[in-house]
């Protein structure tokens, strides 16, 4: 399970509509990979000024060349543009597989896979694994426009049902995946939802699923990760633990897949007042030290103290 850091040789770089799909030879990562996990790639070469790793959900692993890993991204910022300019035989510093994978049902179930934009990429490896378990996989994919819908064909080929929505109506029906979700859930008699996309989508999916009492596993891609390995504490979001206590958890090591009902979607980007260790939060009400710090709310919560 432990992630490894390897130097992987780029096998192919392909344009897929608006996206770039990159395949890297990395047997040590490919053999350990489970759907939902991601890789963290160093960009810009050895003396780069871009210190943050770029993290990408793994789209697919294949056994050729001892094991390859494929990920998909939009070349929209300098790091991703640098990656898109890589060619076959270039060597990348890549860490993976990282994060908590999608849990899969033990018994056959009807699963709905909801993906938006690049968030669709990790769902296909999941669908393959679900098929192994005898589960039905239905796809509900969305994006702003037709060229941003990733994997529509694969979804149509491998899914029992494949519904597509685009904001501009250029492919499938016009609107958002959320508009179709209630209908699809009822018609497909969905038992489990897997969702991957922007926070707003995950929040809406989790809300709707809660109403139908369907469990959701949500793969988050925000807040952006800097290291991917749990060191930098950058990608935190508030989530409720099984003990009922809200903690600021790291998307990279505690996620990126979370139970949809445990993430406090409305509070992402904040520190909820009742989160463990929030300003004014009181410990056990015991130790004198606790009382002292509790009485003096940290005045500089929004200033740099690190």
């Amino acid at each position, binding site marked *: 399970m432990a992630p490894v850091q390897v130097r992987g040789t780029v096998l192919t770089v392909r344009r897929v509509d608006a996206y770039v799909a990159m395949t890297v030879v990395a047997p040590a990562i490919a053999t350990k990979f489970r759907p939902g996990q991601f890789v963290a790639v160093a960009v810009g070469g050895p003396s780069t000024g871009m210190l943050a790793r770029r993290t990408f959900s793994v789209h697919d692993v294949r056994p050729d060349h001892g094991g390859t890993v494929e990920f998909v991204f939009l070349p929209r910022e300098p790091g991703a543009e640098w990656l898109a300019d890589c060619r076959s035989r270039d060597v990348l510093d890549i860490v993976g597989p990282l994060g908590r994978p999608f849990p899969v049902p033990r018994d056959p179930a009807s699963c709905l896979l909801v993906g938006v934009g690049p968030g669709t990429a990790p769902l296909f490896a999941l669908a393959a694994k679900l098929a192994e378990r005898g589960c039905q996989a239905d796809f509900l994919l969305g994006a702003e426009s037709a060229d941003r819908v990733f994997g529509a064909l694969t979804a149509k080929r491998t899914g029992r049902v494949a519904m597509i929505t685009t904001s501009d109506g250029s492919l499938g029906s016009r609107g958002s995946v959320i508009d179709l979700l209630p209908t699809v859930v009822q018609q497909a008699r969905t038992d489990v939802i897997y969702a991957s996309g922007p926070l707003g989508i995950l929040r809406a999916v989790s809300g709707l699923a809660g109403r139908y009492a369907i469990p959701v596993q949500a793969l988050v891609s925000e807040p952006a990760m800097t290291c991917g390995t749990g060191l930098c*504490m950058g990608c935190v979001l508030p989530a409720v633990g099984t003990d009922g206590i809200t903690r600021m958890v790291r998307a990279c090591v505690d996620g990126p897949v979370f139970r949809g009902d445990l993430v406090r979607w409305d509070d992402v980007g904040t520190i909820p007042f009742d989160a463990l260790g929030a300003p004014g939060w009181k410990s056990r009400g015991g130790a004198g030290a606790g009382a002292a710090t509790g009485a003096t709310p940290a005045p500089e919560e929004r200033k740099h103290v690190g």
Partner: protein
Amino acid sequence: MSADLRTRLGQLELPSPILAASGCAGAGRELAQFTDVARIGAVITKSLTLEPRAGNPAPRLAETPSGILSSPGLQGPGIDGFLQRDLPWLLSRGARAVVSIAGHTVREYAELAVRLSDSAGVSAIEVNLGCPDAASAGRPFALDPAAAGQVMTQVRGSARYDIPVFAKLSPEVTDIVSVARACVSSGADGLSLINTVPGMSIDPVSLRPALAGIFGGLSGPAIRPLAVRCVWQVREAFPDVPIIGVGGVRTGRDAMEFLVAGAAMVAVGTVLFHDPSACSRIQRELEEELMAHGVDRVTDLVGRAHESAGFAVDRLSWS
């Protein structure tokens, strides 16, 4: 032949002068997946507070040219969680723990020092003086020699006699030597130079501050020359006080720069976000650099850049 990297920290012998810097390695657990934590000098833990802290809201980090701007806001388990889970784990892995502490009052620092002294296995305490001082309207301790000195007096007085206490200083002062002097005369056994530099970055898409906390601490290779200058100045003033040099170390050559500027140890921080195995790599590269320069022991290198040029050449040619 390999060079001797062993370094002294108080009563303790470290296998190497390369440490993992505070705030960039948690309590070592994540790092241990990529680096043998027993073979690096020590892990300087993320700054501990008395109580658990949730930290600042996201976004907390932003990439800047050759640097990272960050304001995690001291998220951590608090001293109890650290002593129960993290410290025993670090020790079980054969690592040495330098524990960084943070507080908002002098009393909090002192209490943390007492708690750490009661538990076995703390190799040293690093006092993060970059925290806002509740008694002076949130001005960080490190900006005021008197406040920094007060903290160090209390921590030195509270910590067990055989645990060395280092003060981590901010470069955001007109005269870092005067802050260093206040700390040393208040009993600090050593100094860590430097903490992050306050900075700001604005998101080009949203046109809003990139961090939820608006300002953050800049770290990474962008601040290395600043750190080397601080190490040099403090070494000139206090040649006998051990210094942990920290700020943007990325290669063995960078580590050597800190050593010859006067640091006895070098901590690797932000670069761990980019390369989680950086500590081992830098250690290896440093060894190669030593051999290339014909230096047998890393301790022979410390402060060498301060020697007059004639003498340095002389020494090289005779060795």
